[in-house]
């Protein structure tokens, strides 16, 4: 299958750390392969595929596994270790779409007024100003900077509408990290990520995770806010045709607002990260 070997080199989230109990077994799927997560007495967990143990690590409040004995290193989010941040694993949401479509949507701001109406965007503030995008060859990431958008309620902690600044990182084909204006702590940035578990090429589990400066809202408030946003996206993602992400530019017409998406697709294609993608027009 196209891209499977490349996809096997990466780490993927499969559970929230500490969410399994002793002796519990949880069957799930990764890259179309059945895997089982075993809760253990000392709360260390193991993951097996076809009876064989897979590498496991716990990071960013999630359990990560990979099929590779020599995997690419898990990306770094230095902010995760900053004192004072509230770390918020938001729980899994399953979506019937390519894992790459889920990431691409996360990089998109032009949909805010229509999909996250009155929260992340609202007409008539629909314009996307030019921003910078680059593929950073040294760290092999897509990075978009100087992204700005008017938002009526940018975060649970935001009051009135503000112009919000964003930086986006695609740190792995199925991991996206955004840094955005933090309303209660000017000068700092909230970190919001989308960790995607590819169940197969056309279905994924999405594990949103946040590292925020927010001392006012309850954990339940912050989780609710992020689940609201992501499930609003879900009804879009399940209705994009085809379900896989088309990499042939003839298939879908971009505009200037889509520069991050264009770079993401180009980066995937160049790196052979085409699990979940369509490489030829249909």
């Amino acid at each position, binding site marked *: 299958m196209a891209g499977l070997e490349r996809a096997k080199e990466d780490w993927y989230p499969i559970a929230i750390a500490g969410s399994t109990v002793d002796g519990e077994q949880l069957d799930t799927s990764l890259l179309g392969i059945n895997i089982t997560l075993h809760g253990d007495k000392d709360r260390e967990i193991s993951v097996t595929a076809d009876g064989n143990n897979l590498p496991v690590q716990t990071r960013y409040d999630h359990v990560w596994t990979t099929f590779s004995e020599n995997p690419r290193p898990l990306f770094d989010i230095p902010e995760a270790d900053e004192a004072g941040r509230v770390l918020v694993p938001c729980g899994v949401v399953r979506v019937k779409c390519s894992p790459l479509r889920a990431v691409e949507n996360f990089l998109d701001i032009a949909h805010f007024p229509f999909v996250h*109406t009155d929260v992340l965007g609202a007409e008539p503030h629909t314009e996307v100003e030019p921003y910078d995008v680059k593929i950073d060859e040294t760290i092999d990431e897509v990075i978009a900077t100087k992204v700005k958008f008017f938002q009526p309620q940018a975060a649970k902690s935001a009051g009135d509408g503000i112009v919000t600044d964003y930086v986006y990182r695609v740190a792995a084909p199925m991991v996206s990290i955004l840094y955005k204006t933090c309303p209660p702590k000017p000068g700092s940035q909230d970190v919001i990520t989308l960790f995607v578990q590819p169940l197969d090429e056309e279905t994924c589990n999405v594990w949103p995770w946040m590292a925020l400066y927010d001392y006012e809202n309850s954990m339940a408030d912050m989780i609710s806010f992020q689940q609201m946003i992501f499930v609003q996206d879900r009804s879009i993602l399940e209705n994009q045709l085809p379900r896989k992400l088309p990499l042939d530019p003839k298939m879908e017409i971009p505009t200037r607002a889509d520069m991050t998406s264009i770079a993401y697709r180009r980066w995937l294609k160049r790196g052979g990260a085409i699990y979940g993608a369509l490489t030829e027009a249909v």
Partner: protein
Amino acid sequence: MSFKLYNYVLSGNCYKVRLFAGVLGINYDSIAVDFHPGQEHKSDDLMQLNPAGTLPIMIADDLVLTETSAMLIWMASKFDSDNTWWPATDAAKTAAIVQWLGFSSDLTSTIGEARLHTMLNRDVKIEKALADGIVALRRIEAQLTEQGLRGGAWLVGESPTIADIACFPYVALAPDAGLEHDDYPAIRNWLYAIRSLSGFVTMPGIHEVHELRNEGD
């Protein structure tokens, strides 16, 4: 505040109350509950309030209500001065409404369950939930079709009632569970009519009526 609601943003049952409060134009105190992934509705505090371990929970005056039908009747009785949403003195209408309130729990146990599986990976007998969900959608479609032939647009009578509020969420959210609205023209028109109500509020999976915004731009 008129009442306090223990609330979960993705719950269709909690949404019944949020929606009706929006339509009636009343404010309330909302307390977010971490249903997923935290299972907070099964916490000691909330189990003491509601031994059934379900959401929503409404604290209304001295009442603790845990059934959405009771909440809708309480809200209508208390805040709808025109008595159109719950026409308490009309025996035939209230009886018909209660029929649909009962039916709305079938929607929860079929489409609602299927949605928990398809969206939040909960362990559910998914084939049965989906098959029964189709049966439920067909019942609503048949009723709305007959109402349409009589010249009406709502489940009971000539104007919207709490029957419509109670049945709307899980019918509207059926696509979340993989049950599309394509085969149900009467349902589609009814969903649109409810989304067009003054004071309508959305929830994830049910979009804003963009048709009605910025017309003529």
